[in-house]
């Protein structure tokens, strides 16, 4: 089953790796944005099956984006997986307090990234 995943990350190279891992290895469709505002727009317009969301971004950080996604009836049902390099216990506590589908820590293995996402979201692939 073809899935559509929205990648929100300000790092061009990270987006390129994720996109390659999901499209070339998993055969999924991906959308990508480098800013939080554009990510909110794309999520509402394109209604992806899942969102991979970076935390540290210049305009809106991942926490603010997630809060706005949850406030919007059009996007609040889209599962969100945080893709982050934040590893401190304090950061993990903040993630756990959110109603996110899961967390994937950088660096990640692109060869298993699609499977990790599917496992977190309980997708049959």
């Amino acid at each position: 089953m073809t899935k559509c995943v929205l990648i929100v990350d300000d790092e061009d190279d990270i987006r390129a790796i994720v996109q390659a891992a999901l499209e070339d290895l998993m055969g999924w469709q991906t959308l990508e944005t480098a800013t939080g505002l554009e990510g909110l727009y794309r999520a509402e317009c394109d209604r992806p099956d899942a969102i991979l969301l970076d935390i540290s971004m210049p305009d809106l950080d991942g926490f603010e984006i997630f809060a706005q996604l949850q406030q919007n009836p059009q996007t609040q049902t889209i599962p969100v997986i945080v893709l982050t390099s934040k590893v401190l216990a304090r950061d993990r506590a903040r993630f756990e307090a959110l109603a996110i589908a899961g967390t994937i820590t950088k660096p990640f293995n692109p060869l298993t990234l699609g499977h990790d996402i599917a496992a977190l979201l309980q997708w049959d692939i």
Partner: protein
Amino acid sequence: MLLSVPHQIRYRLASIPLFWVITFPLAVSAMGTLAGAGYLSHRHERIIVTTLGQQLVDQTNHLVHQELEDYLDAPLLINQLTADLIAQNRLNEGDSAALEALLAQRLQQFPSITGVVFASPAGQLRAVEHYPERQLVRAEPDDRGRVRVYRLGLDGALGAEREVAVGWQSLGIGRDRRWYEQAVASGTLGWHALPWQDGGEPLTLYASQPLYDPRDQTLLGVFGVYLRLEQLSALLRSLDVGQDGRLIITNANGMILATSSPDVAPERVSQGDTRRRLAAGTLMTSPDPIVRALGEVLQRESSLSMPQSAEATVLRFHHQGEPQLGSISAFQDAYGLDWRVITVMPEDRFLNPSIPHQRQALLLWLLGWVSAVGLGVVIAKLLLHRLGRYYQASQALAAGNLTQRLPTDSPISELNGLALAFNQMADQLQASFQTIQTALADSEAKFTTVFRASPNPIAIATLADGRIVEANRSFTDFFGRSREEMIGRTAVELNLWADANQRQWCRQQLVQQRRVRNLETRVRNATGDIRTVLLAAEVQLLGEEDHVILTFHDITNRQQAEAHLRQTEQWLCQYSQVAPSMIYTFVETPEGDYWFEYLSAAVEEISGITVEQGLRDANVVRGLIHPEDRKHYLTAEAHSAANLSAFSHQCRILTPAGEVKWIHTRSQPERRPNGVVAWHGVVVDLSTEKQVEAALRESEARFRQLAESVQEGFFVYETAADYYSYINPAYWAILGTDPKAGTDNLQKWLDGIHLDDRDRIDRALERERQGETFDQEYRYRTPAGELRWLRSKAFPLYDGQGEISRIVGTVENITDRKQAEAALRQSEERFRSIFNHAPYGMSLVLPTGQFVMANPYYCSLLGYSEAELRTLTFQDVTYPEDRNDDWAGFQRMMAGEIATYQVEKRYLSKQGEVLPVLINAAPVYDVDGHPLYSVGHVQDIRDRLAIDQMKDEFISIVSHELRTPITAIQGALALLGSGVYEGRPEKVKTMLTIAINNSDRLVRLVNDILSLERLTSGKVSLDKEPCHVPELMEQAIDSIQTIADRAAVQIVVQPVSVTLLAAPDAIIQTLTNLLSNAIKFSNAGGTVWLRATVEASTEDLNMQPLSDANWAGSLAQRSAATASPVVWPHPYLLFTVEDQGRGIPADKLDSIFEQFQQVDVSDSRQRGGTGLGLAICKQIVEQHQGRIGVASQLGVGSTFYIALPLGLAQPDSPALPEQF
């Protein structure tokens, strides 16, 4: 507000007639209103007229522009037409006839021009002009330089040869060859202004057009049209600007080209003079004073003399005190013409027409004012007429005429109201007067009744002769006379006074004092009885005559007092019967017989003998005297009888019951006329007192025994004899004195007191002599030299005369206590010092949480004084959310469940600040194990928490910065390694690029982190050496030039030749970092400046321009904290790197020198930075004892400053620039 007005002024104000009160303010206000309106109208009119005048001046200036454009269009058009003919080969320049015809035709077509000329390179010349007359000018190349001039008819017919000259210049303006040379040099159509003669000013204007062969572009010749500028002046004069107005045209240098001034008009002078005056004509040298004034204004305001457009610029100036309106504009065209057009008109020219109107307005103003004042006078007169009547009626009313009433028929309603109020007041006055008269009559009747019915005798008599005018019934009854008998007669006539002297004295008192009080006197009634009375009289004015109102009280009956005296005597007798002391009168005759005349009842109580027994036989009583005491008693008695001296003797008696009693007999002897001696005395039973004395003696014995055995010294000092009547053994031991050495005295004790305490003891002894108790602690040196602390307490005792007779006291050796106290005090001081100066909070609280003590740090932390804290509990200063847990832990500790209590919690300071603290508390127990206090140790952990947070943030940033490139590298390589891109080289290349770029990023990051770590850890010290600053700057530029070229950014370097003691590579790295940043944030085509300067004087780095910089590092922080300027040791080297980039937001200026603090987090990707460059620069600069800072304006650019002290240079390498 009440103002205090002097009396004189108030009087004068009160005397101002009402007429003036009404009319004067009206006149003044009318004058003020009309004058204000007139002034505002006049001012408004002036502004409007001036504005319109300025608009007229500007329009005139614009009109000159239009006239000039029309006037100067003709030469340009002629040239263009001629050039078109040549270009179209419709005119052969070698065809002289056709050329002359064309020139004549042009002159005919455009009469405004002065002449038309053509000249070829070979020397051919043709010119047609109508100045000074219509003529043709010819010159041929083969005519040896001659120039021939022919008259020319209006029909174009050639006339006679008028003049032949050699050389063009000799023929004057139209044939000046310089116009030809300038036209050839310019190569295109243009204006050329030439003077009449060499060195003169331009008076002829040429529009010249060089003509070229269209085929080979060889010069065929120059076609020109010329104008005499005098015609411009005529043109300006044709524009009517009035006699005082001026139109002036000047060139850019201020030379007058044309003017409408009448005194320089060419028509008024000869041709030669016109040339001369115009040739010398500048604004400043003009004979026209208005033009000279204008020139002075333009010279002062140089900006006004250089207008940049045809839009008129306003000129305002004064000439001979008269305001002038003017405007100046530039007249320029595409062919190089650059003139100024100036228009000037006097402002009064526009204002003068309004003067007649102003006179009319003044007349109207006066008319209005007179009308207003006249109207006020009429109204005042009307009001005053009616008010005068009111005044007359008020005067009559005041004089008692209560029937006065006012008319209410005035046309003014307020006056009618006033009249009605006056009438009502008069009615009320009349009614009140009648009421008072009735009440007075009633009062008089009541008084008469009271007077007549009074039980006290009252009479009224005249003061002058004492004649009785009224007397009540009591008075007449007292004297036993009828009223008719007494009225009209005097007291003397009635013989009322028993004592004539008292009457005289009383009368004198009434005349002088007008009253007499409680005069005890005797009066006589009708029956002749004398009675004593207490008299009171007072003088009152009744009618118009002084009268005496008198009354008295009968005090005749004095028997009551005598009865009272007898009663008192009886009471005394009764007292003697019941008194515990025996009162007696004992009589002894010279013959030796004796008996008791009187014995009180107490004799039975004291001796057991009855009064009757004693009176019957005195021996019964005297026989009771104890046999051992009888002899002394009789001796004393005989002595008293012989000397009639007071008898006082104590002795024992033996009662019939066998009881021995002590008695004390005191009596006073009296020798009676019959020779007997009678003793009147008292016998007191002393048995009780004697028993007390015995007990006292026994007590004294016990006391002495006690005093001998106690450890405390005890003494009795006799003040009169100055010796110690008693000293117990402990006293000797305490003072270290041998009792065998003799009796001690006060001086010996004083000698042993320490000199430092001696004055205090002397003062205490002095107070003791005044009756105060002595209680002093002092040092005492024993005879053996031992220094002891003693405490002496002494109490003065008084004798019967109230004098201090002795002093009893104690001495205590308190040396051990003093030593213990000193040790305790030192311990307490140590504890107090620790408590007060502890760099952490300490508190002592009760088990209830109530504060008992708090040290200064604790108080400062919470913002409360210690006194305030004592009224609070620690729960009161605990953050509400932490109170329950904190209180539970505290109670567990106080209950002994835990030995100590440690907690991190939050306080709430008095100012509302939330303070995180670490508490270590321990309980303090009493001897029974009950908790007394809790000692708390409080640490402010704000810094620790802030450091923890900073550490977390740093780790988070580093983690992010490291993990991001590693993720990209690992991901790219994993994808490549998976083989998914086999056969897809473009994807392979993309992944490899990602891996390589992120590897570079990672390397840069690691290098920067290592560099920064080496610098901050101090493990690597920078090796400083003398460096030539220009070389450092050059090397920094070399290393960054490639980046600058790629970004199309220019680097401008301004070095200074100076030697700096520094680590060259580090300085180059710093400059390279700053330059790299500047280039990164500059737009293509921008410029970056690298400058170095030496500041050789003592500079305050907070001064401009450096005060704008945000200085990083400890020095800057100290400066901000102390708010004092930072003074840099001089000289120092200042590097500046300035760019025109996007600038830095103000809120980022303080943090950009910190690690990973970039203005925008995306900069690390887009600009290639690691976020550590400026932190490295800061470390390098600070290791050179320098400072780095930045000043920036958003959207304009940033300037980074590096200040390095030149004082570090070696002595042999001069610190100052080499040119110094």
